[in-house]
């Protein structure tokens, strides 16, 4: 699971999948790189728990959103690379739209003031 403030938040299930797909837009990557990229891009707010990463990757592969192949890592180790498929790209667009709607909706409900207050706490 992505480990932000609350480690077991059910609400964000599916967001990990979305983020994995997003990461793969820039190019094929193996599990370690994916985790690192998510952590770095979120400025280390999100920490990818490996126990969720691999099941998630396999799930995405089952659904045909990513495909995998064995290759050599930057350090010349044998590693499994994941590649975004066309279906995965569509799914990503879909998920992104949904996410934006949701974020906007929550933003509207919470109001910026409340959000700001929460942020300063």
């Amino acid at each position, binding site marked *: 699971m992505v480990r932000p403030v609350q480690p077991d938040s059910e609400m964000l299930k599916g967001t990990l999948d979305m983020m994995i797909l997003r990461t793969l837009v820039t190019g094929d990557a193996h599990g370690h790189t994916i985790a690192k990229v998510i952590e770095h891009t979120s400025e280390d707010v999100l920490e990818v728990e490996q126990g969720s990463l691999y099941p998630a990757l396999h799930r995405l592969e*089952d659904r045909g959103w990513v495909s995998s192949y064995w290759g050599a890592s930057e*350090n010349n180790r*044998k590693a499994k690379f994941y590649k975004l498929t066309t279906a995965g790209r569509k799914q990503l667009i879909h998920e992104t739209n949904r996410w934006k709607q949701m974020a906007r909706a929550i933003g509207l409900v919470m109001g910026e003031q409340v959000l700001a207050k929460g942020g300063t706490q």
Partner: protein
Amino acid sequence: MSFGRFFHRRQSDRELLQEMDAHIAEEIADNIARGMSPDEARRQARIKFGSAETVRESLWQQNTLSVEGILRDLRVAVRSLSRAPMLWITITITLALGIGANAAIFSIVRGVLLRPLVNRDEEHLLYLRQSAPGIGVADETFSIPEIKDIGSNLKTITKLGTFSQIDFTLEGLGEPREITAGVVDGNYFDVMGLRPAIGRLLGPNDDGQTAAGAAVLTNHFWVTSLHSDPSVIGKTIRLGSDKTTRTATIVGVLEPSIPYPVDTELIANIVTSPHHLSATMVQGREHRMTEVFARLAPGATLEAARAELQTVYASMVADHPDVYKSADHFAIGVTRMHDQINSRAQTILWVLFAASILLFVIACSNVANLILARAVRRETEMAVRSALGASRAVLRRSLLAEGIVLCGTGALAGIAIAAPMVSVLARYASRFSVRALDLKLDFTMVWIGAALALIAAIFLAFVPRLPSLDSSRGMGLASGGVRITRGSTRRLRIFAVTQITASFLLLAGAGALLNTLFTLEKARPPFDASHVLAVNLPVMYYGRTPDQVREFYRDVQDRLRALPGVQNVAAGFAVPWRDTNDFNISLSFAADGARRENGQDDLRATFRSVSPGFFDTLGVPLLEGRDFRDGDKDGAERVVIISKSVADQLYPGRDAVNHHLYWTDGVVKFIGISMEPRRIIAVVPDIDDENIIPAPVMTIYQPADQEGWTGRLFVRTSGDPYSLVPSITRTIHDMASNQPVERATTLADVRAAVLTPDRLNAIVFGGFAILALLISIVGVAGVLAFSVSGRTREFGIRMALGAQPRSILANVLLDGLVIGIIGVAAGVLIGFPFARLLAKYVSELQLPSAVTLAGCALLILIASIAASALPGMRAARVNAAEALRAE
């Protein structure tokens, strides 16, 4: 879960380990690059990764169907279904009917049509028949000279076996009785490929004039009448036929096998029947009374055998142009025994099978409807579960679990009703094929039921639409009301229309059969048959001269006439509608001074032999002339009575009486009838004693005592005919204690019995159609009820705007009517090509008349309006204020 991964879990697990090792190695490398010591780097990497085992386990589970998971799904399904017991019961009954009917009919189709015969190498067993379409002979046995001609030096056939049916009076096994038996040659049992249950069968040593009489009992007779008593072997019996009696020893009992072409009690060698040894039988080319069976030579095909037999037969026909007139078109037919036995059952069973499949389609559509309606109601629940993380696969699985529970109970109930159905249908099918007689419930049926249930369950799981991943719908889950999407409604309607279409087809088929039945039932017999009792009084020749036999029958008639309640008594040799099919003796004849068109062959008429008073007894008045009298016997002037059709044909517009006619048929000399001229003494109305719908018939009646036969009594009574049976029997037994008196039935009942297969057809198909209609009514009602409950708000608004409840009711009724109309239209569109296709394979196909079709359509439309009445009334009762508040 993916099936690929399920089957390669081990390999996939190995790859996962490699993948995770690679990950940790990368992490360690990163940590070292950050300046950690190698040990520390390794430790941190491990901590960060967490337990590799957990990952493995969770993936393993992801790729596994766990037993607990399935059980949990089933438990949840049972729990959620028991909250909707009406739905569960409706679906169980519907599926039970669909599955039960299919399982039962399939096991009958399998048992009757597909199961091999017990005969050794049954696919090599052939059955031969000849036909002569030119003289209206469709299906004829062979004569001994014919068998000799076609049976010698065949290459494709190893051996012929012959069988001829004969009625014996049997003495020595219980009460003396008249039995149906067979007389066979020594090859018969070898050709048939049958074995004895006990004792031995007949072989070539039993052939010939000098052999000792020997008989084999059929298994059915041995088991049912003799209680499988093995001591019967070696017993001596007396077999009476053709005015003499021969003795025979019982040498064995046949194994259980299909009796064909007739069900007999015993099968004897030829020496037991004097007739079969007589010159008329052995030399008479036109004396056809022998069935021929053949065994294919190894490696020979049916086609080759057919071709060879046709060649041989053609050369025989060419050798005897006097017998085989070219205009008669004599031909030989060769079929596999297996196909021959099933020839009548084939059509009816496949049609029945088609009907049961239609019923299954209806049942499945109906269940699909109910499930779909339920699923739409549960869309909210599904959406919530989906939002809580249930994947589509999980939702499908829970739907599948419900489907399995529903179909499982349906299948159980179906199998429970299939067992009695098999026995009822087997009795029905036994009218068309003797093979249905020994039909037992077999276990394939259970498998078929289970397979059908599984198909239905999977089908049901894929019927409802799952909440899509579409965000707008996903977000809309909060609204508690039922939202009916266009797609679901359309699907519901398609299923309803399917049901209506299938019901209409079934109904039209049943309608056609009912039509036939009504026409037959409406037909009146040519005389009042309800007060005429027909009694079989088999002729007992043992210890009597022919004159004594004749005297006995005259005495019996005199004594019976003296009984109170008896109006008249007469004798004959064939009971109308019962024996007449067996004694359909049509002979050619000519008449003096009769009109003859040039080049026309002799006319043919049915031969009947009756005693004086026969026409009085039936209640048919003579049109002109006098009845037979006691003086009309052998040695006196030969006389005949003819039917009106014969008179009209011979002497149109003239008086037929006192002209002479004489038989010209080659057959008559074999049955003891001379070709001498006979004076016509009377004309009677046509009495059709074969067909249910009376047709004009050419009949020539001869006196029973003048070259005629007897064996049947006709008694006209004033009161209830059956109440006289005991006194009739007693009177006859007083005269001769061992005289069998059998099958006393009124002619009206005999005639009604002929209709039984038609009546059964109509009942079975009518039953199917009514079942189908009932299920469809439930289906249509379900769809409309669902659509009404979904449109509560709309109705509320319309009512608030001033719509009358009546117009809302009309609206729903119209909905139902539209479904009905579309269904009927689809039925007509599908039905016509289907019927045309069927007519290619089924010759006697009865197509429903336009009136019947219109009637069926009307019934369907009425049914669909009736089905929409309940939901319509509910819609009309919607309270506007409440409906709007509910939202």
